[in-house]
């Protein structure tokens, strides 16, 4: 049976929500940007007016201002965006229970019922588009197709406030002329490689010899070939509001560069506390710790370490992070941002294996101590209690990674 899948994308999500709430800026070029003073100075989203000036997501605020001096930059308001993400989902739930969010502003909906073909899918898409516009005051673009990959292409095809259908009859005329970079999973690097082979469009990719793609790109080549030919059979995963958690991590661009181990120690403590708190909240323990480092010249890399036993303690995550840092970084260039991630998660309810080299009672004490700190913070705020080491540096102490963190669900399961 042919499926009917919608991919819904909120147009310029953050910027649209800001414009809805402030009618005065609605007809001006608007961008949502990180805090310049805290050095998160990049464009996170822009509205249609700003797009006309060539403002791009991810570019520095000063670059954007150069392109468009009258650009209105507003700081992000994640609570508000989460609310709208939740409200759109409530609307989707009126139509299907098969909803797979992809970030805060995108989702796939599987609406294939016994009677729902693509034409019905188009009607549904239009109804959802109109409802979101009326009820939430923002616009979406919707792609309707028989697979997820083409549905996503469809929501990009015509925007804002539009519906596009890619069927088995029209995809050769409509999808194949599109640039190959628009295909899901063709990033900048793969795009460059493909163009080097003379593959510029999705159609050219679809007609490339499979063996050549296999030799050059391995199993990814096979996957991209299938995608380009509309042979994507992956299901729309029923993901709840809480995405399936595979890892829990935090990273931060620090208010100033980090020059030495002491600086990194402070920030890693804050990150470790936030990650540990979230691990406990979600009921997990981690068996692997990963750090991500990015230096002032924007080179970045990650390293990971498998722990001897699972943990949900900030102290242990921090120890592992510092161990990884010492083994892998020589401080020739100061660091601009660092991250810490707990992966390889197991449920906290799983019994801990007996370990001769770990002081069990001491560990339990530490856990109850950290839980108490969680509780104090929950009741009196994040800054009510903190480690003394984080007080030793004025510029670094005001990071609150837990509350500033937003979970972007990893919904795509292919």
């Amino acid at each position, binding site marked *: 049976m042919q499926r009917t899948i919608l991919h819904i994308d909120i147009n310029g999500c953050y910027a649209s929500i800001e414009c809805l709430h402030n*009618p005065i800026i609605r007809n001006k070029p608007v961008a949502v940007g990180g805090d310049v003073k805290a050095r998160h100075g990049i464009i996170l989203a822009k509205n249609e007016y700003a797009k006309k000036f060539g403002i791009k997501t991810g570019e520095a605020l000063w670059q954007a201002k150069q392109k468009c001096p009258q650009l209105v930059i507003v700081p992000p308001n994640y609570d508000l965006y989460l609310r709208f993400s939740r409200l759109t989902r409530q609307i989707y739930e009126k139509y299907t229970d098969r909803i797979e969010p992809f970030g805060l502003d995108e989702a796939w909906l599987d609406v294939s019922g016994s009677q729902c073909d693509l034409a019905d899918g188009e009607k549904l898409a239009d109804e959802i588009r109109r409802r979101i516009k009326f009820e939430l*005051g923002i616009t979406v673009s919707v792609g309707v197709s028989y697979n997820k990959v083409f549905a996503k292409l469809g929501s990009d095809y015509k925007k804002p406030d539009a519906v596009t259908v890619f069927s088995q009859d029209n995809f050769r005329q409509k999808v194949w002329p599109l640039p190959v970079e628009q295909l899901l999973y063709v990033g900048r690097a793969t795009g460059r490689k493909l163009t080097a082979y003379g593959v510029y469009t999705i159609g050219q990719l679809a007609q490339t010899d499979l063996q050549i793609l296999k030799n050059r790109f391995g199993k990814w080549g096979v996957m991209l070939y299938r995608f380009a030919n509309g042979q994507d059979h992956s299901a729309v995963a029923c993901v709840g509001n809480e995405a399936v958690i595979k890892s829990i991590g935090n990273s931060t661009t620090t208010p100033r560069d980090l020059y030495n181990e002491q600086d990194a120690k402070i920030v890693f403590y804050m990150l470790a506390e936030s990650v540990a708190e979230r691990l406990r909240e979600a009921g997990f323990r981690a068996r692997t710790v990963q750090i991500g480092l990015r230096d002032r010249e924007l080179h970045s890399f990650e390293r990971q370490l498998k722990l001897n036993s699972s943990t949900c303690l900030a102290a242990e995550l921090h120890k592992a992070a510092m161990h990884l840092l010492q083994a892998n970084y020589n401080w020739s260039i100061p660091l601009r941002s660092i991250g810490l991630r707990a992966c390889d998660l197991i449920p906290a309810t799983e019994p801990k294996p007996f370990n001769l080299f770990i002081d069990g009672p001491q560990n339990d004490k530490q856990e109850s101590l950290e839980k108490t700190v969680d509780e104090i913070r929950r009741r009196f705020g994040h800054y009510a209690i903190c480690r003394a080491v984080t007080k030793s540096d004025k510029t670094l102490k005001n990071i609150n990674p837990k509350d500033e963190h937003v979970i972007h669900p990893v919904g795509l399961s292919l």
Partner: protein
Amino acid sequence: MSNTNKVYVAVKACFETDGQLKPYAVIWEDGHEFLIDRVLSVCRAASLKAGGAGVRYTVRIGSRETYLFLEENRWFVERK
């Protein structure tokens, strides 16, 4: 660039036995109280004029019809 079209107001309302929330009176910025004669309709809607989205109550106050919005836990009206 603050938004002056959105006026947050205090509202006297009642949770009915069936769980519905019914507004009875709006208290304007200056303290003046306006009794709601009738709730004409209730739906989810955005207010482009005031800038916001929530549950929209179309209400009659005297001879005038107006919108009253419940946005999460705050009520607002559109400035005329």
